C-alpha cells in the first residue's frame, strides 16, 4: 500500500521543482547569452570612425577625398565665471570672433553657444588646456582633399554640414552618403594623368599669359574621364580664394564658340553623306561671299585646296562650302545626334546649355561649319569628338570607373570614323597640328583658334580661344586629349602669334608624351623608326 505524502513532503517537492525550474531558467539563459546571442554591449563598435561621407578614390585606389575626424565646440555660458575672459581665450585658441562669442555668452536665452566648428585634434587639445568649464565637443567630420588644387574643380567641395555643394561632391552626393560605411566610391580619374594635365595646362597658361586654361582626357570606348582640369582653380582645403582663384569649372559650366575644332564634325558629316571626297579640290580665294556676309581666312591660304588640306590647313572658306552642301536641316540633325544641341547629363552637376541660332539658315550653316555661331560646353564637344573617332558610336562621359564598353547608338558609319581618323592624322603630319606630333605615338588632331565675341557684338580679332583636339593612338584611338586656352598671348618664340597650332597643339603633345607610357599605350615601331633615322 502506497503511503500518501505528508504536506511537508509535498511542500519540499514543490520547492525543489521551483528551484530546479529557476536553475534551468538561469542555465538556459546562460547558454543563450554565451552561445547564441553574443553581447553587443560595450557601447562603441569597432571600425572606422563615424563618417558622413564615403571616401573618393581614383581608378587606381589613390585617395582623393576623405572625412577626417574633427569636433564642433559648444559652450554653456551659465557655467562660465568670467565670460569676457572665456570669450577672449576661446577666440584666441579657436579663431572664433570675440564679439560674437561675447554676445552669445551674455544672451541668457540660449543655453548653448556654438564656439567653433571643425576643430582639429590639435585645436581641441589647446581648448582643453584652457581648463574652462562648460565646454562640450560634438564629434564631426571635415572633408579633406590630399591633392588640393589639382582636383579642386572636378571634385568640388562640401558645406560645413557635409553636403556636397559643387563638383562630384554634389553630383555623387547621394551615393557618397549611402556608401559612408562601406567601400569608397571609385572614380574614373587617374590622379597621375590629372596631375600631368594640370601642371602642363598651368605651364601653358603662364607661358602665354592666358586668362583661363582647361583640359580633358577621356577614354573613347568607356567614356571614362581620366582627367579634367580647369584653371584658375582654388584650394579646396582652405576655401579662401586668393589672387585669381576661381571655383568655376570652365570645361563643364562654360560654353565656348570653339572655332576650327568644330570642322572635325563638319567633315564627319560630309564624309558620312558622301558630299565630298578627301581629294576634291575647292577654290579658296581671298574671301567667300554669302549674301551680305564675307567669310575670311585666319591665315593666308593657297588659291585652291583639296578637302584633305582644307581640314589640315583649317580653311574657313573651304569648310563653309563643304558645310553648306549638307544644308541646315541635316547639319542641325547631325549635331543633335551627337548631343551638341541639348544639355549633357553625367555625374557632374555643372553643365551649360548650348547656344545656337534660332534661325538656322545658309550663313549659319556655313559659320557653324567652322565653329562660329554655336557655343557648347567643352565636355559636350569632347563627347561628340569621341563619337567621331571611336567607330562612330555615341558615348556619354562618366566620372565613375567602369570596365565595360559603353558605346551606344551608331551615329556615323565605322568607315566614316576610319576616314576621319586618317584625316586627323594628316592634320598633325601635314597641317596646323604639327607641333602635336610626338615621338613614338601616332597622334591625330585638330587645332581651333576662335575669335571671342565682343561685349558689343561682333568678334574681337586678336582675342582668341585656342584649343586642340587630339586622339591617340590614331589608328585605333583609345584616348582623347582636349586642351583649351582662353585669351592666350603670343610670345617671342611664337613670333607674337597665339594661334592654336603654336599654343595648344604643343601643349597636347606634351601631355600625350607624358601620359601615354603611364596608360600603357604601345609605341608605334614605325614612328620610332622614323625618329631614329
Amino acid at each position, binding site marked *: 500500500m502506497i503511503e500518501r505524502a505528508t504536506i511537508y513532503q509535498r511542500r519540499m517537492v514543490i520547492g525543489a521543482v521551483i528551484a530546479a525550474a529557476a536553475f534551468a531558467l538561469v542555465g538556459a539563459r546562460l547558454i543563450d547569452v554565451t552561445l547564441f546571442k553574443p553581447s553587443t554591449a560595450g557601447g562603441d563598435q569597432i571600425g572606422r570612425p563615424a563618417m558622413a561621407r564615403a571616401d573618393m578614390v581614383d581608378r587606381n585606389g589613390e585617395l582623393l577625398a*576623405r572625412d577626417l*575626424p574633427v569636433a564642433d565646440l559648444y559652450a554653456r555660458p551659465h557655467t562660465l565665471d568670467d565670460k569676457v575672459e572665456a570669450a577672449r581665450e576661446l577666440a584666441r585658441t579657436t579663431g572664433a570672433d570675440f564679439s560674437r562669442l561675447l554676445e552669445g555668452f551674455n544672451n541668457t536665452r540660449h543655453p548653448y553657444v556654438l564656439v567653433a566648428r571643425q576643430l582639429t585634434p590639435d585645436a581641441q587639445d589647446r581648448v582643453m588646456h584652457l581648463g574652462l568649464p562648460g565646454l562640450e565637443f560634438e564629434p564631426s567630420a571635415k572633408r579633406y582633399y590630399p591633392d588640393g588644387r589639382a582636383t579642386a574643380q572636378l571634385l568640388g567641395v562640401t558645406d560645413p554640414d557635409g553636403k556636397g555643394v559643387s563638383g562630384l561632391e554634389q553630383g555623387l552626393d547621394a551615393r557618397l552618403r549611402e556608401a559612408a560605411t562601406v567601400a569608397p566610391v571609385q572614380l574614373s580619374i587617374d590622379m597621375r594623368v590629372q*596631375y600631368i594635365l594640370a*601642371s*602642363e595646362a*598651368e605651364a601653358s597658361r603662364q607661358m602665354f599669359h592666358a586668362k583661363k586654361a582647361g583640359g580633358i582626357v577621356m577614354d573613347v570606348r568607356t567614356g571614362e574621364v581620366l582627367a579634367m582640369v580647369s584653371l584658375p582653380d582654388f584650394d579646396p582645403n582652405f576655401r579662401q580664394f586668393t589672387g585669381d582663384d576661381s571655383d568655376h569649372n570652365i570645361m563643364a559650366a562654360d560654353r565656348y564658340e570653339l572655332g576650327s575644332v568644330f570642322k572635325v564634325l563638319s567633315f564627319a558629316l560630309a564624309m558620312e553623306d558622301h558630299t565630298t571626297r578627301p581629294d576634291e579640290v575647292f577654290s579658296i580665294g581671298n574671301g567667300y561671299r554669302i549674301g551680305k556676309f564675307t567669310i575670311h581666312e585666319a591665315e593666308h591660304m593657297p588659291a585652291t585646296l583639296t578637302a584633305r588640306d582644307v581640314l589640315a590647313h583649317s580653311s574657313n572658306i573651304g569648310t563653309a562650302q563643304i558645310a553648306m552642301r549638307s544644308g541646315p536641316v541635316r547639319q542641325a540633325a547631325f549635331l543633335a545626334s551627337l548631343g551638341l544641341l541639348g544639355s549633357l547629363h553625367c555625374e557632374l552637376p555643372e553643365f551649360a546649355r548650348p547656344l545656337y541660332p534660332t534661325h538656322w539658315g545658309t550663313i549659319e550653316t556655313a559659320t557653324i561649319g567652322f565653329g562660329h555661331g554655336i557655343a557648347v560646353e567643352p565636355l559636350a564637344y569632347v563627347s561628340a569628338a569621341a563619337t567621331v573617332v571611336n567607330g562612330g558610336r555615341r558615348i556619354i562621359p562618366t566620372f565613375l570607373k567602369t570596365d565595360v564598353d559603353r558605346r551606344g547608338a551608331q551615329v556615323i558609319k565605322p568607315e566614316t570614323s576610319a576616314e576621319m581618323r586618317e584625316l586627323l592624322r594628316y592634320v598633325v603630319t601635314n597641317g596646323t597640328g604639327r607641333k602635336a606630333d610626338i615621338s*613614338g605615338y601616332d597622334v591625330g588632331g585638330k587645332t581651333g583658334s576662335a575669335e571671342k565675341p565682343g561685349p558689343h557684338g561682333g568678334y574681337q580679332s586678336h582675342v582668341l580661344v585656342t584649343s586642340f583636339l587630339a586622339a591617340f593612338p590614331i589608328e585605333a584611338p583609345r584616348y582623347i586629349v582636349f586642351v583649351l586656352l582662353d585669351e592666350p598671348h603670343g610670345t617671342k618664340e611664337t613670333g607674337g602669334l597665339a594661334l592654336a597650332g603654336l599654343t595648344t597643339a604643343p601643349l597636347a603633345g606634351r601631355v600625350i608624351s607624358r601620359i601615354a607610357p603611364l596608360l600603357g599605350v604601345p*609605341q608605334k*615601331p614605325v614612328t*620610332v623608326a622614323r625618329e631614329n633615322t
Partner: protein
Amino acid sequence: MVRILNTLCVALVGLSILALYHVSEQTRVAKFELAGINRQINREHATISVLQTEWERVAGPARIQELAANRLGLTGTPAVQMSSFETLPRRGDDSAPLNNSPIAQANVQAPANLVPAARRGL
C-alpha cells in the same frame, strides 16, 4: 535524509548566488574594458585615417616630381626612350626584335630638353 538534501540545496543556492555574482561582476568589468578597447581602436582607426590622408598628400605626384627634379636631378623621360619586352632585340647574331619587327628601340634623337613642370617653377 531530507534535512541533508535541504542543506545541500541551500548550499547550492548560496554557491550559485556567489558564482552568479562573480560572473556578473566579471562581465561588468569586461564590458567596461571592452568599451575602453573599442574606443581605443576607434581612436587608432581615426589616427590611421589621418595618417593615410597625410601619406597621400606627401606622396602625391606633384611632390614626388618636385623632389625628383630638385633632389635627384631627374627630368622627364621622353616617351620614345621607354620600351617594352616585345621590342627588345634578341641576343646573339639575330638582332631582330622578338616580334620580328625590323625596329630596334633606343632613340638617339630623343629630345633631351624636356623639363618637367616642377622645374618650370610650378
